[in-house]
């Protein structure tokens, strides 16, 4: 029984990490129809910012997180304004090619600046170790990860659903022409949406280091997982990404614990069966 | 009276609480030119979608030439002769008209399965496609990419594609939508001059054309059939006047 709870807890924490990394892509792909394969490159920027601030400048871990967000968001806006916007109406394939080109360049740039070495991150002591609650071992960092992600999700949902700004963004991405007619700054809304999504990836990148590490191949290595979450969750759905990430995190963890011999197959089997059942994803509006 | 070319019985469709088709009963006799009219949102396009199998009805049956087709998919209905065009152009932008119509002819003849012989080996099919294009005045532009054609020509190509399948029943969803009036007249003339083996039902908003080219008219309102009759009967019907013709603006 306790093992079940433990697996659920660990899976949920892992799922939250996947959620942070992927929710931004779900938004840009689903609402703006832009295939941004460089999404994890922005995540990587967040990771490297945290590492640099901690190891070279001695910042505390928590203080680096906002910077990770800002750096990733700011970089993404530069690319959005200079390159991506020119391709909003281009074919998906051209968008793929452009962004995969950026992934290649970012991998090389990271290797040039930081070397190919694994970046260590030394967490503060209160985030290390674990607590025993009713016989279940809860890792401190995982608790933090879950709490943090839930707060981020809440803020995101509230700001998109219940604020004026959120309404404008939704209007802009739903129907550009109409929004323009209403005097909404559509370009601005796009840029902000993009920045928000990339910033969250940057945050995810920073939070991921302790669990999955950080080196230049990050930008490519986690692309697949992010795509899985986005497609299973359904394009453009924040709730969908949340559920999909949780589901995949938990099934991955449970698979490894209970059926280690098929551990490597499980995540793909789960994805394929979910997509065959619901091709548009769990919460997707369009196929 | 012989078996109707197309008939529906008790056709129903809801989207949630919105009723878009309610108890639709239609019988289209062979060779008739039918107009389907009604205000916006009356469920005209939905009815075409139901008849062609692009939507699944919640209840009711559809028969084509006496054959039950309710369970068949859209492709199978087309192959049995129930064919439609689209209100908004739904074409092959990067194919030229010759290629597009040849494609449709080849699919009908089931030669589309062969991949080892070049298309030039099928001269009968190509000639047939060219013939269709000629009757619809598209021969002059048939080597241009579809997306480069004038709008009216694209509307004609919609019909050409439908004709290439050798339809028994042809459902035209606003065939002249967006076409200048003089061209529309040509288009409707072309439609009414089709072989009498083909039963035609078209949706149209312009009452001039409706009364000029239809031999019978069906009026739909709110997902129901209000009345069905000859143009004279319809124009005299007070209910039609009230809900439809009486309204100042039909767009």
């Amino acid at each position, binding site marked *: 029984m306790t093992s079940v709870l433990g697996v659920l807890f660990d899976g949920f924490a892992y799922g939250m990490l996947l959620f942070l990394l992927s929710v931004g892509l779900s938004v840009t792909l689903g609402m703006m129809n832009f295939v941004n394969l460089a999404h994890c490159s922005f995540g990587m920027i967040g990771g490297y910012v945290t590492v640099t601030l901690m190891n070279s400048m001695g910042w505390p871990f928590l203080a680096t997180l906002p910077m990770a967000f800002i750096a990733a968001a700011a970089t993404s806006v530069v690319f959005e304004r200079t*390159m991506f916007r020119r*391709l909003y109406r*281009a*074919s998906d*394939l051209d968008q*793929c*090619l*452009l962004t*995969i*080109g950026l*992934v*290649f*360049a970012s*991998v*090389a*740039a990271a290797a*040039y600046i930081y070397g190919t070495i694994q970046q260590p991150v030394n967490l503060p002591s209160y985030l290390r170790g674990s607590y025993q609650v009713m016989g279940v071992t809860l890792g401190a960092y995982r608790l933090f990860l879950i709490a943090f992600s839930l707060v981020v999700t809440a803020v995101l949902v509230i700001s998109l659903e219940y604020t004026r700004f959120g309404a404008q963004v939704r209007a802009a991405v739903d129907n550009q022409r109409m929004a323009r007619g209403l005097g909404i700054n559509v370009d601005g809304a796009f840029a902000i949406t993009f920045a928000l999504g990339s910033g969250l990836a940057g945050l995810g990148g920073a939070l991921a280091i302790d669990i999955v590490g950080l080196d230049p191949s990050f930008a490519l290595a986690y692309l*697949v997982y992010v795509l899985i979450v986005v*497609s299973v969750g359904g394009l453009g759905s924040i709730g969908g990404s949340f559920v999909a990430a949780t589901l995949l995190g938990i099934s991955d963890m449970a698979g490894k614990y209970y059926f280690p011999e098929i551990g490597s*197959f499980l995540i*793909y*089997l789960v*994805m*394929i069966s979910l*997509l*065959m059942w619901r*091709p*548009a994803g769990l919460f997707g509006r369009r196929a | 009276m012989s078996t109707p070319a197309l008939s529906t019985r008790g056709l129903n469709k809801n989207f949630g609480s919105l009723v878009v088709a309610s108890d639709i009963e239609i019988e289209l006799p062979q060779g008739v030119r039918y107009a389907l009219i009604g205000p916006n949102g009356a469920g005209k396009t939905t009815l075409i979608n139901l008849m062609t199998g692009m939507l699944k009805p919640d209840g009711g049956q559809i028969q084509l030439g006496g054959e039950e087709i309710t369970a068949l998919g*859209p*492709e199978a209905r*087309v*192959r049995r002769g129930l*064919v439609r*065009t*689209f209100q908004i152009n739904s*074409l*092959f*932008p*990067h*194919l030229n008209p*010759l290629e*597009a119509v040849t*494609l*449709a002819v*080849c*699919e009908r003849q089931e030669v*589309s399965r*062969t*991949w080892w012989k*070049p*298309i*030039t080996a099928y001269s009968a*099919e*190509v000639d047939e*496609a060219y013939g269709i294009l000629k009757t619809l005045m598209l021969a002059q*532009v048939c*080597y241009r990419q579809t997306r480069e054609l004038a709008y009216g020509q694209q509307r004609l190509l919609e019909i050409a*594609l439908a004709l*290439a*399948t050798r339809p028994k029943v042809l459902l035209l969803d606003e065939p002249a939508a967006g076409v200048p009036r003089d061209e529309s007249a040509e288009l409707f003339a072309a439609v009414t001059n089709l072989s009498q083996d083909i039963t035609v039902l078209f949706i149209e908003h312009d009452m001039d054309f409706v009364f000029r080219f239809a031999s019978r008219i069906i009026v739909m309102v709110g997902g129901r059939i209000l009345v069905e009759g000859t143009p004279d009967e319809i124009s005299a019907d007070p209910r039609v006047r009230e809900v439809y013709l009486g309204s100042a603006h039909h767009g």
Partner: protein
Amino acid sequence: MTSTDGALAGPQQYLRAQQRWRAIEIVFWLSLLLPFVVTPNYLVLASQVAITALFALSLDLILGYAGIVSLGHAAFFGFGAYTAGILSKHGWGEPLTGLLISGFAAGLLGYLMSFIIARFRHLALIMITLGFGFLLLELANSLGWLTGGADGLQGVKTWPLLGMFKFDLWGVTSYWYSLIVLFILFLVCRRLINSPFGLSLRGIRENAVRMRAVGAESRAHLQKIYTISAAIAGIAGALLTQTTDTVSLGVLNFERSADVLVILILGGAGRLYGGIIGAIIFLVARDQFSGINPQYWYFPIGVLLVVVVLFLPNGILGGLAQIVESERWQRWTANLTPWRKKP
């Protein structure tokens, strides 16, 4: 293309003219013989380019012509590669029959998968192909007794081609072999896309909904082309095995699927030559850049892709075609060649 415009020609002549070999095509194929003379030290690279081009060609059939985007096409490449390798390891190293058997095996796998693939489109399709690719990779990894697992298959020994030509260190035999196979399969593909079936495929790519409304057997078409594409990918994989005598999990991995997609888009999808041009440019650029700096060559490659997208949309061939068809270009060339009148 536009110079044949105007409805003067009958439809038969027009279609025949469309399918005729152009001079530039012939020049292109002849130029592929140049490495034998000009760069004899690059034949090993050239043969890998030819193999990659064949792989990209197989992807072009489904992506460029039928609109199936796949991120798992390495599954078939790898399946063919392992089939050829396992055959050879167990005593049958004859290359030509090995090629056929591998193509058949990969085609069979493609046929089975096509029942699922043909039902989906868009992101779900991409992710399902990706998922199957990973499943096959994991399967190959866990069946170590059959595949050699992560160490790769050992003991692959390909017999001399036709019993006469040994696969040499310089890659002379490899390049001849790969190039001829590429050319033959290119002819097959060319014939295929010029057939009624090819026309229907383009219809599916252009507008799948409309295909239903003309009564097309779209699903059967998709299954068929997927099977053919898988078989060709398998043959490309088998070529790689036979010309290198190695097979490893690398033939099945995600990077290979992603690379071939990048190569095809780079060259221009839906043009048959796109994959070949893409393979030449991508692999030669990679060879040259990584020769200059083995560590950071990803950077110039990335920049190359970005530049191509920004200046030549729809890939190199697509972008060039657009330029050639543009009015300015037409006017310019019309001045150069006054005898070529535009209708």
